[in-house]
């Protein structure tokens, strides 16, 4: 009840409350209505008490009314139905009269605040009464409306002339009342009556009296006729069914009527859904024609979906299975009657419940309903149910089996929708097909090829032989690769926005899962999603994250460390993997999530079988970070003037943390293993490092675990060599390549190629001596403090200039072109190329180095060169 009052009090716009009221009132629990109205009266009473003494009459009536109402309540019993109804109705009318009086009085004395509130109450009451009068507006109200309009307009005009007289609040209320009245008189519902009243007020009111009388008697009759079975005479007489009435009611003729009443009670409070389902199951048995069956099935399925509440709880397994079965039955029916009926979303409803619609041969009869919607709902409910089950139990596995059934339902729906699309006049339905195809893709993309084709083949096996699909022909079932391509290509061609983006992501995910990282990367770049992804919805963003991670893992499996690190960095470096991948809600210490947000996040989660193993992911990420970071750290250690570059902050943090801890136990978890391996690696002990990394058990989860381990060992060897050279270079003047090759168990050829690369990229100040097969480290790299400082200074100056240029570019935006043209080709481009160029900018400069730079250095540097070129 409280919610009703809440709605009433909070709602100042009466037009919207109309519908709300009627909705509530039809719900029709008589006792509560009574209760409510008496409460209302007491409220009215209070108001009037406050008001003034000359409203004694009204109060009196109310008091009297209340007592009668109370008496009626007490008297209420089964055999006196008619009396109850009558008194309730009369009571309402009395109440209405009381409110009208209050309003009129308030407006007369110029208290518009009071007037406004009373009027609001009045307006809300009217539809209630109108309902009891069989939908007619009480004449009294119309009369009041017209009278009030006159009064208010007068008051308004008066106020205009003498503006000082009224306080602000009051005048505001006056305006409000005036607006409301105006709106009401123009309102469709009342305008006719208002017109009639204005024309001939006498006749209008008289008419009312004549009509009003027979109504209750008629109702009484009806009630008597139906006897005990029906309690509420206002309704169609269905809501409560006594055991005796059943056989009488469920006839094929009345099916549609029942359906309508069920449809009307949908979403209302207090409806017993299970009861409705039982009723409809019976109706289905009774149904004589296919039309009726289709109609019953359509509403039965949707009522079944209603059994799950919006907040959390999923449908029960039984309900889901029944719904799935009925869905299949429905589609089979539609398939059997494919030249007669068609279920589409925006069809006109067949209004006449009594008659069976006449079918015109050759044309399709549209039935309102949504096949796609039902299929999607089945999918959603399954996901929700999976989310609510503990994934480590056998229940989960048992539930997961239903995915096959669901997938076949999706397939059926798709085939149905393809057929609809081909019908003349229903082409507009095409885009619904996209969402079905996307759903299928969602169920396929995370599966390995073989599993995908098993799912697909099973789904086809359940379908009748004759069915086939245009988009994904039956022949594709055994070839999951081609299937995914066909599905995603269809979406690329026929959809846009989110659907298209998701199709792209699923395709990429699939490609990455099947160890084609380059192709996946190309797809990713082709889609340009990395630029636009922030503008998509959260679910798509989650899919984007998943895909990105999957691409990173694919690179990892292929042994492409750098690429893998780049792809994984964004997600894994963030410390919020679980949240970003929707694989569990992370409890954060300072989380500022509202309960709603938390619930939404819970709803977004992916079911367990779609998850990407977080621990494996972390292991991969840390290992690739280690392989990149350790040589970098070694480099920074020996050359302090290097910019402090950080590749993976997360890894650095972990490393710092473990270095600070005083005691080091043997490694326990994956992370410990990797961190200790990193330490061993930076000390040049590649064997220990490789051993530690290889003893991580989680690699077994990867396909081809052995190859992964060999790959990692190889990578650790080369990284170890690089780290060793970078760390210990200052302490050697020559190193024999053969020794190195022995130390790191690498072939001499690969050692020399690694060393050559490092020399060429100027990571190592050294040269090879081919004759003796040694590396000769160059001396003279020690620089004095002053020199180091001056280097830093020059670096900073460059940074400053760059920052200035950037600022100017931003400031001038479009006009910056002029600036570009002047500075770009000459000084800037070259300056930058030099500063960063390093390795590849080889011989040419170096050889001439002795003569040229000096000359230029003193003749105005880049300016001179710019003029030259």
């Amino acid at each position, binding site marked *: 009840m409280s919610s009703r009052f809440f709605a009433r009090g909070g709602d100042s716009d009466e037009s919207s409350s109309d519908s709300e009221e009627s909705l509530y009132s039809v719900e029709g629990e008589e006792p509560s209505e009574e209760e409510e109205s008496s409460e209302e009266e007491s409220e009215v009473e209070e108001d009037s008490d406050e008001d003034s003494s000359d409203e004694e009459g009204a109060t009196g009536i109310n008091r009297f009314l209340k007592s009668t109402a109370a008496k009626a309540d007490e008297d209420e019993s089964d055999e006196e139905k008619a009396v109850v109804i009558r008194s309730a109705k009369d009571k309402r009318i009395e109440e209405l009269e009381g409110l009208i009086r209050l309003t009129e009085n308030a407006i007369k004395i110029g208290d518009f605040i009071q007037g406004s509130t009373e009027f609001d109450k009045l307006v809300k009451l009217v539809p209630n009464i109108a309902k009891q009068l069989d939908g007619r507006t009480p004449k009294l109200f119309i009369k009041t409306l017209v009278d009030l309009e006159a009064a208010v307009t007068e008051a308004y005009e008066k106020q205009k002339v003498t503006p000082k007289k009224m306080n602000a609040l009051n005048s505001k209320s006056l305006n409000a009342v005036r607006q409301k009245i105006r709106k009401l008189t123009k309102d469709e519902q009342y305008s006719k009556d208002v017109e009639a009243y204005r024309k001939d007020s006498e006749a209008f009111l008289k008419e009312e009296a004549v009509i009003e009388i027979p109504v209750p008697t008629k109702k009484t009759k009806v009630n008597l006729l139906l006897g005990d079975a029906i309690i509420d005479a206002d309704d169609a007489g269905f809501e409560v069914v006594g055991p005796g009435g059943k056989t009488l009611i469920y006839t094929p003729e009345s099916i549609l009527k029942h359906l309508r009443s069920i449809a009307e009670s949908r979403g209302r409070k207090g409806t017993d859904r299970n009861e409705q389902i039982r009723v409809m199951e019976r109706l289905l048995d009774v149904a004589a024609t296919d039309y009726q069956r289709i109609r019953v099935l359509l509403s039965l399925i949707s009522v079944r979906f209603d059994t799950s509440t919006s907040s959390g709880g999923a449908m029960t397994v039984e309900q889901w299975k029944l719904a799935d079965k009925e869905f299949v039955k429905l589609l089979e029916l539609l398939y059997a009657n494919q030249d007669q009926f068609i279920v589409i979303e925006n069809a006109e409803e067949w209004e006449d419940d009594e008659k069976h619609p006449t079918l015109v041969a050759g044309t399709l009869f549209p039935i309102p309903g949504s096949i796609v919607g039902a299929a999607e709902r089945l999918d959603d409910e399954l996901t929700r149910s999976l989310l609510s089950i503990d994934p480590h139990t056998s229940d989960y596995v048992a539930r997961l089996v239903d995915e096959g059934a669901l997938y076949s339902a999706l397939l059926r729906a798709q085939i149905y929708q393809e057929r609809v699309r081909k019908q003349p006049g229903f082409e507009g339905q095409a885009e619904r097909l996209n969402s079905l195809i996307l759903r299928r893709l969602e169920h396929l993309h995370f599966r390995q090829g073989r599993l995908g084709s098993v799912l697909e083949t099973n789904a086809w096996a359940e379908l009748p032989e004759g069915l086939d699909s245009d988009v994904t022909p039956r022949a594709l079932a055994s070839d999951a690769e081609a299937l995914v391509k066909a599905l995603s290509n269809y979406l690329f061609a026929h959809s846009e926005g989110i659907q298209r983006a998701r199709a792209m992501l699923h395709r990429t995910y699939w490609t990455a899962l099947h160890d084609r990282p380059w192709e996946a990367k190309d797809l990713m770049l082709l889609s340009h999603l990395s630029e636009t992804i922030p503008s998509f919805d959260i679910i798509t963003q989650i899919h984007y994250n998943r895909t990105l991670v999957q691409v990173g893992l694919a690179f990892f499996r292929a042994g492409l460390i750098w690429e893998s690190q780049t792809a994984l960095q964004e997600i894994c470096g963030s410390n919020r993997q679980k949240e970003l991948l929707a694989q569990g809600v992370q409890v954060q210490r300072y989380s500022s999530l509202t309960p709603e947000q938390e619930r939404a996040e819970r709803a977004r989660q992916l079911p367990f079988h779609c998850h990407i193993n977080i621990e494996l992911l972390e292991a991969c990420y840390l290992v690739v970070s280690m392989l990149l970071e350790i040589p970098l750290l070694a480099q920074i250690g020996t050359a302090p003037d290097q910019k402090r570059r950080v590749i993976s902050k997360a890894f650095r943090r972990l490393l710092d943390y473990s270095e600070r801890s005083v005691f080091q136990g043997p490694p326990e978890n994956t992370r410990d293993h990797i961190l200790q391996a990193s330490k061993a690696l930076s000390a040049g002990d590649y064997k220990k490092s490789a051993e530690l990394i290889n003893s991580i058990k989680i690699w077994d989860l990867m396909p081809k675990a052995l190859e992964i381990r060999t790959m990692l060992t190889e990578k650790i060897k080369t990284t170890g060599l690089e780290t060793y050279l970078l760390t210990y270079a200052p302490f050697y003047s020559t190193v024999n390549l053969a020794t190195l090759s022995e130390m790191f168990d690498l072939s001499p050829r690969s050692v020399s190629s690694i060393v050559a690369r490092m020399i060429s990229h100027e990571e190592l100040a050294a040269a090879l001596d081919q004759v003796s097969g040694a590396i000769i480290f160059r001396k003279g790299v020690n620089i004095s403090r002053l020199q180091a400082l001056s280097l830093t200074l020059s670096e900073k100056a460059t940074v400053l*200039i760059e920052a200035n240029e950037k600022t100017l570019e931003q400031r001038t935006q479009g006009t910056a072109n002029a600036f570009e043209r002047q500075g770009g080709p000459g000084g*800037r481009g070259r300056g930058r190329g030099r500063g960063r160029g390093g390795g590849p900018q080889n011989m040419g400069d170096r050889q001439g180095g002795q003569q040229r730079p000096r000359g230029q250095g003193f003749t105005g540097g880049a300016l001179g060169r710019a003029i030259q070129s």
Partner: protein
Amino acid sequence: MADNQPDAAADLVAKYDLLPKMIPFLDRHLVYPLLSERDALPDITRTKFELLKHTNMTDFVGDLDSELQGLSERPAEYTKKREEVLRRRAQYEEDTSKLRSLLEDADVVSQLRSDKVANLAFLKEQHGVTLEMVNALYDYGQFEYSCGAYQSAAELLYQFRVLSTDNEKVSAATWGKLASEILSTEWEPTMEEIQKVKENIDTRLFSNALAQLHARTWLIHWSLFPFFNHDPAREVLTDLFFSPAYINTIQTLCPWILRYLTAAVITNRKLSRNSNVYQKQLKDLVRVIKQEGYEYADPLTDFVKALYIDFDFEEAQKKLGEAELILQHDFFLGSATKAFVEAARHLVSEMYCKIHQRIDIKDLSARLGLSQEAGEKWIVNLIRDTRVDAKIDYQAGTVVMNHPPQSVYQQVIERTKGGFFRTQVLSAAVAK
């Protein structure tokens, strides 16, 4: 073993044969010269016949057919076809004779201006030229091209372009003219046409990215003809291929063009005066090859990869040998083989010298695929040409490189070099 050698070479060549990949992007007539290179192929005549069946070169096609069927003279149908072709030709001749004679008339031509619409109006008024006549020029041009009369086709299409205002046809005519010029090996006009086609693609297909991509792929393939046959074109075209739009096209649709790009960049070494440009091109090339490594690889790109990404000299040397073979058998690159090998050797030795301090001459010679004596000579030349700071130790048979460490002073100078100029530019820009 001796027998195996050529077989292996042939296999290699066959493995990296690009012809099948390129044919879809070339015109019939353009494919013909590529095919005529390979008379050794078993069913070359059949291929040629299929290729040219739809052209109007009846005599030639007839010859091919008779050869296929083992007849001593052309089948009779070709005589009929030939007559038909001649008849149509005469018809076209007649249709366009008036306009052509007008355009050959110096007086008339001198009165034409750059405004096409005005020109057409002028011709219409003064000489009764109609739009149909102009269009007939186009058809005639196409017909001539199909007959193999490329020069006359080029001429006709040129005349058409001067007058027509139909953008669609003008662009088609430009493509036609480009093909005609290529086939009549007129490289100067070819380059002009390439430029025109390029502009056309950029402006007209601006909104249609896919069409743009396809048109660019075509242009890239067509321009291979002047690329290696016309020296001045090479630099222009290398720049064109490296421009973002075209390098993207190559990466997405036709990575095999990287072979030609690699060859062009490496052989450009001597041509380009500016070593900076060369370095930049090389850098770009290495980047692209690295990116596309998973999609396309042949000995040429592998050579670059071995040298600049893996620093594996042995591999580079092996690939250089293979690349030489490939080049010899490539229609476009055949003539550039020598230059390529020469330039590639330079690159190898440059890289080698950069990394090593002391080099055994014998070993280096082997790396470069030369005898010891030739290797020594080579090194001496290298030291002289590129001013490498090196000395030959004759007794030990080694070259000693001198890599002076970069002094701190120089480093500071290098870093601050641009500063003054950039600041000036900056202040000028602010003052504006």
